[in-house]
């Protein structure tokens, strides 16, 4: 008996991908093929790079969300948090620009990471220490962050110092060996995320806490700490997204990041992470973010749909994709 199981265990390791986990990738492939049929320029290099670069923001934030969700939480505040972090970062950069020159960008970026981590920690601590539904907590902080950015921008826009713009632009528009920098940054975040979730103690505990907090507690896992840390990771991811985002448009506005939370959660769920927690799929999440952005892109590239109905078609495609995935399993 034990011989058999040892052999099986060996095979197990050599075959790490479960078929059901392939769903999001298959869905992505189908959408790519359909897209190419609808409009050949869909697969043009520029378009592909545009779409992938754009999806970098949602993907980066969604990596954080994968941690939060797989640890049994939820964060609705990410969109507003990103706007808030962006605002703080721009204010710091603008304040330092006269004295530090483009060094202000580095300080601003570092500050953004700190602020993001603190925002995440606030969410996490209210959820864990206060023992309140994450949905309510992060809905509350969503309102708070959104109001703060509106306040900081006076309802208008908070542009980054002109002097910094050129030095900062490459973070969004630059590329290394033809690969745009946001894609590289998101790759780094994704690899770090995958490493953390799959290869470290923390990742294990995260999934255990999400699967059954009681079992985790009885196994010596500091449940509250693990969950809080997931929100902090989320905050850091938001900050990284903010850092990549600012050079794109050069300003924070009250609409920055609006409704991104929904996109982020959708990406995570499409990617195969269950909302009730207990398992996280980093690569699935990435596929989810790409799927969302590819569908939106296709809606514009195709001429099939009235502008009024774009959202409807997107909704239908997502539901159909999930249904197909469900029934081909």
């Amino acid at each position, binding site marked *: *008996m*034990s011989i*058999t*199981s*040892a052999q*099986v*265990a*060996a095979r*197990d*390791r050599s075959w790490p991908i479960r078929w059901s986990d392939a769903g999001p990738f298959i869905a992505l492939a189908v959408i790519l093929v359909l897209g190419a049929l609808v409009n050949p320029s869909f697969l043009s290099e520029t378009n592909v790079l545009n779409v992938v670069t754009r999806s970098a923001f949602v993907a980066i934030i969604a990596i954080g969300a994968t941690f939060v969700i797989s640890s049994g939480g939820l964060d609705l505040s990410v969109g507003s948090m990103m706007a808030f972090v962006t605002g703080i970062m721009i204010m710091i950069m603008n304040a330092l620009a006269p004295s530090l020159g483009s060094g202000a960008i580095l300080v601003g970026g570092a500050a953004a990471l700190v602020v993001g981590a603190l925002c995440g920690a606030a969410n996490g601590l209210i959820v864990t220490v206060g023992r309140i539904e994450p949905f309510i907590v992060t809905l509350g902080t969503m309102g708070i962050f959104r109001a703060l950015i509106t306040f900081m921008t006076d309802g208008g826009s908070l542009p980054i110092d002109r002097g910094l713009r050129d030095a900062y632009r490459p973070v969004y528009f630059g590329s290394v060996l033809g690969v745009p920098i946001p894609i590289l940054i998101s790759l780094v975040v994704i690899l770090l995320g995958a490493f953390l979730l*799959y*290869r*470290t*103690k923390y*990742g*294990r*505990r995260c*999934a*255990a806490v999400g*699967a*059954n907090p*009681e*079992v*985790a*507690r*009885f*196994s*010596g*896992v*500091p449940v509250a700490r693990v969950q809080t840390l997931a929100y902090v990771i989320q905050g850091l991811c938001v900050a990284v997204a903010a850092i990549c985002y600012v050079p794109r448009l050069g300003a924070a506005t009250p609409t920055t990041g609006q409704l991104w939370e929904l996109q982020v959660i959708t990406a995570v769920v499409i990617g195969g992470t269950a909302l009730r927690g*207990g*398992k996280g799929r980093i690569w699935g999440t990435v596929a989810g973010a790409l799927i969302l952005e590819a569908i939106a892109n296709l809606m514009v590239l195709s001429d099939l749909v009235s502008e009024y109905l774009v959202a409807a078609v997107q909704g239908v495609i997502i539901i159909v994709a999930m249904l197909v995935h469900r029934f081909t399993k």
Partner: protein
Amino acid sequence: MPSLDKPREAPPTLRAEDLGKTYGPITVLSGVTLDIRAGEVHAIIGENGAGKSTLMKLLSGHVRPSAGRLVMDGQPVAFEDAVAAETAGIALVHQEILLAADLTVAENLFLGREITRGLTVDDRAMNRRAAEVLASIGAAARPGDLVRDLPLAQRQLVQIARALLDPRKLVILDEPTAVLANAEVEALMDIVRRLREAGVAVLYISHRLEEVEALADRITVLRDGQMIGTYPAASLTQRAMAELMVGRELAMLYPPKRPAPTGAPLLEVTGLSVGHGAQAGSFEVRPGEVLGIGGMIGSGRTELFEGLMGLRPARADRVVLNGRPIGRRSVAAWRDAGLVYLTEDRKGRGLLLEQRLAPNLTLLALDQVHRSFVLDRSGEAAALDVAVRDYDIRVRTVHLDAGQLSGGNQQKLLLAKVMMSYPSVVIIDEPTRGIDIGNKSQIYDFIDRLVRAGKACIVISSELPELVGLSDRVLVMRGGRLVAEFTGEEITDANVVYAAAGGRNDT
């Protein structure tokens, strides 16, 4: 043995013909042919993972068979689902407790068959009926209690009550007594006898062979998913049953007692009180000692040790492990100091049922499979292989979620899990709950080897023979307090029961 004398022409209540079940490539049961007759208690015995629970699920419509067919009262039947089987008069009491924890006892009992008056549910009638059934099986739970608040044993009784709510042709009890203590077991056995007298067929699974001997009319033995045979109970001794199950000669059940321990205490606890009550308790355990903790269900044993572990609010005057005072008590701190606790609630607190075996095994002791910030996954797989071998976890593949293991094998996985951190003191709450007799002796051996190696073990058990056979010293709890201590020759069934029941003048 009235059932054996039944005339041949009365068709059996339920007949299984060549029944089999496969999950993907794995065959867990094959070629089971079995008659269950009205008015008989038919016991099914077999090792952990032999397929008993699977067979019961096939018979009660919870799982569809992959091969074979069922014949009920002479008519072939194929149950669409559990409800169809229930309608036909077959009720299954699951081995794993299946109740909705957020609902009350009465709501659980009547779920799916609520009593209504006009448009509304008739809570009064349901509560009344629930109270009757609960009383008839000696359950302390009240109709209005939330299941979430009930201890395990009471939940089990609620499950049994649920099966007995309506008249049945066949009642299947899958290890109903695993979480019960003696008094409740007696009450349950009475109920089974009453059912038999009422002409109901009872299928009874238990690893406690004395119960089987006392109750069963016929016994079917399963081994590795195969049917070994059906025997009249009178023809089998407990030892013969065990050997049929295991397919080999069994060693002694309990290891010989060890010499009295002499060293300084490994663990010393003074003035431990848990919760709001004044439940101050002091005790110690020495290297080489098995300390048994006895008591009635709900006497607070689990509570006391969960308090010690820091799993529930508790105060202690002084706690010393290995000569070092312990300040903050938490599972992690205890683990690092060398003490672990194995919970009695393996499903709710022990294992992540939807995760694979390896993450379950290593969750408590992740540091063991952790090198410079990275999980050593091949080390983890190797650890699993070792655990599967050392603890004799019977799986046909390790590609399973923990929830797919048989109950007994889950218990062994749990044991392997807490032992991953090489503790010097092990607290095991109900060590052999749901473990077959062959494996029981393995676990006892295991505990024996552990303490012989200079470690100590605290065993909380509701099974008297186990407590008596294993312990060097026994503490008895009653009403949340440690009320008696026995050593050596004083450790007898009678003494422990007397001490445990001393305050039970309420029944």
